[in-house]
């Protein structure tokens, strides 16, 4: 599989604060969904933000399809083909569901194409069609997450990065979210996601990365991570390791 995205020795932090990422690296391969795991404060979300252009790099480099993208603005990075859904879902609460979807296709200049893709997405997500005229701020947490993930399909980026898509959702809704992740992968998108629910996350990914204290400890097949006793003990609990 060709390498689509590569982050090398990334050092980054917020404002004038300390380095959160202290030399993190990540390799994302075309068509390989990847789950990033690690304890709180490991720098998982920070790494995604740095890739998305929301955080300037202090050191290191990020390449997409071989081209350096660190230093570009978030809108320029989206145009290159990297979409990002942050933890807070990044919706526009006073816009309707349909308007939020249209905003998802802001970079499309052909209005007819935008309307067509919006209709396609509404057809794929009947709940969103029912709520099409409703303001996004009035949706339930699960519906908001569904909208933010569905919205990434409008521009059809090469990579979609999801920051904790299951955060704050009921278990039944979490399963639905991961079904959407699987669906995005089936449609040829490369999905990179950060997940606290390690078992669930790794089961839905082909590749995994483990971050701790701002550094990448492991980057390899998800099955290997699940089978590694050290990872099991650290992140899945001793019971899982014993089993």
């Amino acid at each position, binding site marked *: 599989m060709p390498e689509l995205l590569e982050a090398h020795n990334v050092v980054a932090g917020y404002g004038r604060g300390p380095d959160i990422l202290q030399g993190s690296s990540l390799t994302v391969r075309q068509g390989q969904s990847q789950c990033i795991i690690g304890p709180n404060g490991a720098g998982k979300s920070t790494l995604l933000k740095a890739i998305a252009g929301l955080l300037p790099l202090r050191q290191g480099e990020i390449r997409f399809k071989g081209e350096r993208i660190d230093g570009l*603005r978030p*809108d320029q990075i*989206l145009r290159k083909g990297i979409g990002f859904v942050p933890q807070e879902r990044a*919706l526009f*609460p006073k*816009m309707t569901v349909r*308007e939020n979807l*249209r905003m998802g296709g*802001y970079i499309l200049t052909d209005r007819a194409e935008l309307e067509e893709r919006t209709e396609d997405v509404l057809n794929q997500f009947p709940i969103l069609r029912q709520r099409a005229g409703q303001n996004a701020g009035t949706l339930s947490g699960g519906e908001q997450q569904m909208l933010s993930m569905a919205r990434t399909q409008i521009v059809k980026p090469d990579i979609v990065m999801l920051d904790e898509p299951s955060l704050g959702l009921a278990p039944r809704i979490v399963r639905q979210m991961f079904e959407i992740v699987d669906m995005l992968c089936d449609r040829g998108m490369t999905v990179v996601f950060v997940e606290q629910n390690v078992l669930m996350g790794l089961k839905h990914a082909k590749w995994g990365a483990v971050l701790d204290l701002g550094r990448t400890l492991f980057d390899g097949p998800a099955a290997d991570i699940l089978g590694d006793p050290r990872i099991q003990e650290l992140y899945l609990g001793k019971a899982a390791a014993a089993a």
Partner: protein
Amino acid sequence: MSQIIQILILGLALGGVYALMASGLTLIFGVMRIVNLAHPIMIIGGAFVAYWLFQEPLRIDPIISMPIAFIVLFGVGLVLYKLVFEREAASAKYSEMTVLLTFGVALCGDGLLSTLFTNTQRGTTPSYGAQSYFLGDIFIPKGQLFAGLISIAIIIVLYIFLRYTRFGYAIRATTQNRAAAQLMGVNVGFVSLITFGIGIGLAGAAGALISFVWQFFPAKHWEWIAVLMSLVVLGGMGKLHGAIVAALTLSVIAAFVGTYFGSTWSLLTFFLALFLILLIRPEGLFGEKIEEA
């Protein structure tokens, strides 16, 4: 009864102008969180553009020169944003910083206009400025009526622009969630620049219209700061429709106060409203509830 209708009409006509005066201010705050204390001096600047174009030999009607005032002040807005505000955009205390920065800009603008035009009271005097329509006992001054109707028309155009155009979507998105707008591909820096220009341009257009409704001079802007702040705070900071409702409401109340208690008291309506709204409902009529730290 006819007196009440008379006051209502005068109040609503001026309310339209107040709404236009406040619209640029609330738009700028909504997108960039800039509390623009220099907005009133920009209105005075627009009035002086209209005044200058009204002099011999040009004698351009202020309604005709209104788009010119918009364009001139739009340009001033672009330059100001680039020189003063853009470099501070990354500051954690951006909103607080802009209060000081815009205060400084207001002082500079006041000084510049005072030097160029002195602090003599001025106004444009198109023929309709001194004429009225009569409906029985009720009279409607043409100047106030035209200024009010044109202001409302401009606000409707602004609303359509924000609601239905691609750039309008980008402005609304940036207002609601700046980071999310970036992630959707919006160049929020460019949107901020153009929105600031539009906001200051609207101040210029309002200035051209008030040039035949009120007498003006550079130092007049100090009086308008509190008036405009009362409108945007009452409506909810950054809420365009809120500013319009507040402008029409307070203007009508001020017209009643002016009629029954004397014109010197009508301004008190705005100051009192600002005081009360900050005390009772600081988020304004249409703003979100302010979280306590």
